């Protein structure tokens, strides 16, 4: 394995994403508006409930959770389903298959530069701002380390799911429909729109057995420092790792089975 070829792709990704500064500004404005809405909505909710702590979460916990969930969403969203779907429709998938690197790895490395840019452009500043606004509600300790490890695994689980869903596009002519379904399911069941702590007991029990909660809920709970015990942390990260391996295996297998299905009409 030659790391140099991967780093070249990473560098390309960084340069490419720096090209589109305008879109970064617009995404930033969009997120800011979303955060304003979320802030006022939950402030009103907590004010009308008359309680400080609801389901084990205070107002600042909920705010940090939702704000960082949004930041994480923008950090992780790779548009892989669109990329694979379009490549299949246009036939340019052939160009990926001809590369001396596995397609799954190539697309990931091609995007990896964006992770670096996004980290410094959105995730890190958001974290700082949130911590200032909530007067340091996020404990700064080992939990940061757990968070980083957890986010790395979450990114890869998310990618596996995306790749799996992108493969479905081989069979259907639809990208929009498939992608929206994926997005809706992932965002709801991962606790990105509403923290899982607010879910009714019965639904939460089901959701806990699905891979989606590993994407947003796990890193964010670890960050908020609700689990101090090292043994609990190990179990949580272990579960996440399990889901990474499971989604990896399934999506790899599915791609392998599906590959012979590709038909490209001329060039």
């Amino acid at each position, binding site marked *: 394995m030659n790391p140099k070829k991967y780093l070249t792709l990473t560098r390309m990704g960084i340069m490419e994403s720096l090209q589109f500064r*305008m879109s970064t500004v617009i995404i930033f404005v969009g997120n800011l508006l979303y955060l*304003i809405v979320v802030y006022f909505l939950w*402030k009103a909710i907590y004010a009308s409930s008359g309680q400080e702590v*609801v389901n084990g979460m205070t107002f600042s916990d909920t705010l940090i959770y939702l704000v960082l969930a949004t930041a994480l969403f923008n950090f992780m969203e790779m548009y892989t389903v669109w990329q694979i779907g379009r490549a299949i429709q246009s036939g340019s998938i052939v160009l990926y298959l001809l590369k001396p690197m596995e397609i799954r790895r190539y697309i990931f490395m091609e995007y990896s530069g964006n992770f670096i840019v996004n980290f410094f452009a959105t995730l890190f500043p958001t974290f700082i701002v949130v911590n200032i606004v909530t007067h340091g509600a996020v404990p700064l300790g080992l939990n940061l380390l757990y968070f980083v490890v957890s986010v790395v695994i979450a990114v890869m689980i998310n990618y596996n799911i995306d790749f799996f869903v992108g493969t479905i596009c081989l069979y259907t002519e639809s990208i929009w429909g498939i992608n*929206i*379904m994926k997005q809706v399911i992932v965002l709801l069941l991962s606790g990105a729109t509403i923290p899982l702590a607010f879910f009714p007991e019965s*639904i939460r029990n089901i959701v806990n057995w699905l891979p989606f909660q590993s994407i947003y809920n796990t890193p964010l709970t670890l960050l908020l420092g609700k689990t101090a015990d090292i043994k609990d942390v190990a179990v949580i990260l272990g579960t996440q790792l399990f889901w990474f391996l499971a989604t990896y295996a399934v999506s790899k297998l599915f791609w392998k089975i599906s590959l012979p299905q590709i038909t490209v009409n001329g060039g």
Partner: protein
Amino acid sequence: MKRKGLLFYARLYCKILAQDLKSKMSYRADFIISTIGMIFTNIAGFISFWILFRNFSTINGWGYYEMLFLYGFSLVSLTPAQCFFDNNWSLRQYVYTGDFIKYCFRPINLFFYYQSEVFDIKGLGQLAFGLAMIIFSWIKLGLGFTPLMLIKLVIFLITASLVMIALQTAAAATCFWIHNSFFVLDLAFRFKDYAKYPITIFSKVFRFVFTFIMPIAFIAYYPSLVILRPDEVELLSWLSPLFGIAFFYIAYRIWMYGAMKYSGTGS
């Protein structure tokens, strides 16, 4: 050039619509999957709403059924933008590739011709959801029923729908000036999710912003007050039809201005 009448355009629209439906039917799988995706989105939106209200019975003095009414109202008033103006999403590509020039050579209104080319049937699912919510919460709230109320509801729904159409049209028109305008359109599209919240939850500054600068409060809040709380209707509620028309007209002029300046790509 002779001005063409309304009847002429109505007949023309039906003809173009028939062609569009025929071409959609040839991609049946895509159509079915997209429709399911749309239904998914609505179900997930409702589930989030339901989970929220399981934890909190009122938000800022707004009860469950009142919020449900606002939600339903916003879904219905967003439907026309989804159904009739979906081609806005493709404008960017037409302009970029130069294909947009074909629309400029027709002896009919450019804006009309462009928008008439696509009718998005899957928006009808959203309409059904919204209507069901309005009717259900109407009954639960015991608002009573008079023909006058129905007329008011229809008028306010139609004019409220102009606001989202205006936002989307203006956002799409940015592609005449900037590249990568997808993010602007996506930003405007995300506004629709905030329309269902009562504007009273925001602070004064943002109440102003969401009323006059990014007028999402006119999508559901102001117009539905007329039905929902007839005793405390604000002046802005009565004026909301005028605002809807004004916003639409401004967006239309921006769009046309961009289109008239368009010089093609030379191919």
